[in-house]
């Protein structure tokens, strides 16, 4: 192929380029996939005071919330590996999640009323996470207290691991678990985010 053919191909590609319609076509695909039951995971990015949060939902419910420091591309790849690769950016399924998070960050919501899909947590970690909503809004509990709540008082370290790998941060309130001496302890979204959430809840 000579140079003139390259120019011809380039001009041809340009003359039939449809980049401007891709957004509409992608939205149409997301709606059709949802309708046909093949949208296994829908996600969107929700902006808030702790940075952009990735929220992902299966047909059963919210399956993942992820901070930017967790690397959203890596989070999507993990969802593809562990849940299903049939993942699309499809904001509509996350409308209620976005609304409740907005209300929470505005201080007007204390509890989340969302269907949750717990499939990314298993075993004792899952037991720990299921007990976290028992710590009320504005309160904190120590890792040792949560270990007792979960039925295994000696498993303090395991409680730390469960919190550090919580697939549903903010919504499942691992930020309310702190050290026995009252200091904050770590947080999967970063210490600044934990401080922000605890301050938000203390003020409301």
């Amino acid at each position, binding site marked *: 192929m000579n140079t003139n053919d390259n120019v011809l191909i380039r001009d041809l590609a340009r003359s039939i380029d449809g980049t401007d319609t891709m957004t509409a076509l992608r939205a149409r695909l997301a709606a059709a996939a949802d309708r046909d039951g093949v949208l296994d995971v829908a996600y969107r990015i929700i902006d808030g005071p702790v940075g952009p949060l990735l929220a992902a939902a299966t047909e059963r419910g919210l399956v993942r919330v992820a901070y930017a420091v967790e690397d959203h591309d890596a989070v999507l790849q993990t969802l593809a590996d562990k849940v299903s690769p*049939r993942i699309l950016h499809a904001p509509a399924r996350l409308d209620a999640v976005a609304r409740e998070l907005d209300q929470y960050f505005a201080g007007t919501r204390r509890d989340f009323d969302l269907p949750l899909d717990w499939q990314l947590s298993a075993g004792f970690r899952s037991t720990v996470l299921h007990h976290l909503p028992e710590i009320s809004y504005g309160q904190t509990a120590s890792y040792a207290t949560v270990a007792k709540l979960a039925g295994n008082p000696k498993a303090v370290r395991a409680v730390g691991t469960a919190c550090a790998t919580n697939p549903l941060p903010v919504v499942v309130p691992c930020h309310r678990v702190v050290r026995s001496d009252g200091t904050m302890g770590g947080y999967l979204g970063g210490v600044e985010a934990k401080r922000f959430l605890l301050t938000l809840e203390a003020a409301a």
Partner: protein
Amino acid sequence: MNVKQPFEMVVSDHGPTVLRVCRAVLGSVDADDAWSDTFLAAMKAYPDLPAGANIEAWLVTIAHRKAIDITRARSRQAIPTDMVPETPVSPPVERDDDLADALDRLPNKQKQAVAYHYLAGLPYADVADILGGSTDAARRAAADGIAALRRTYRGSEPLTARPGKE
């Protein structure tokens, strides 16, 4: 483990190319439907796609079948004729359209071979698999198509911007 990208990345990486292929083969009016049918079918089949498969070739193969379905459905609605209409039925999109029109007037095989090889970048062996027939036949169809486009196309002499524009 069968490592597979999220389908969203497949759409980002290959969506624009597949749309150009659909537009080349069907024209811009039917291309949107073909693109949508292609990616919905691909998403359904995606979990069963073998790891390491050539995704672009897979998508173009699906697009080829969907384009045939749409052409058949359209010809059932229209009066059957072997003649290609002199003027396009739908108004051409508002851009520099000499080339798109010339492409539209090519025989189907040539149009498809040009789209799959030159626009989608598939090797002739893959183009032959899609079209049926030999690799040489696919190569000839693409070459004949490009030659025909070159005869119609006047605007490609300068490699740089055309004088008088912008």
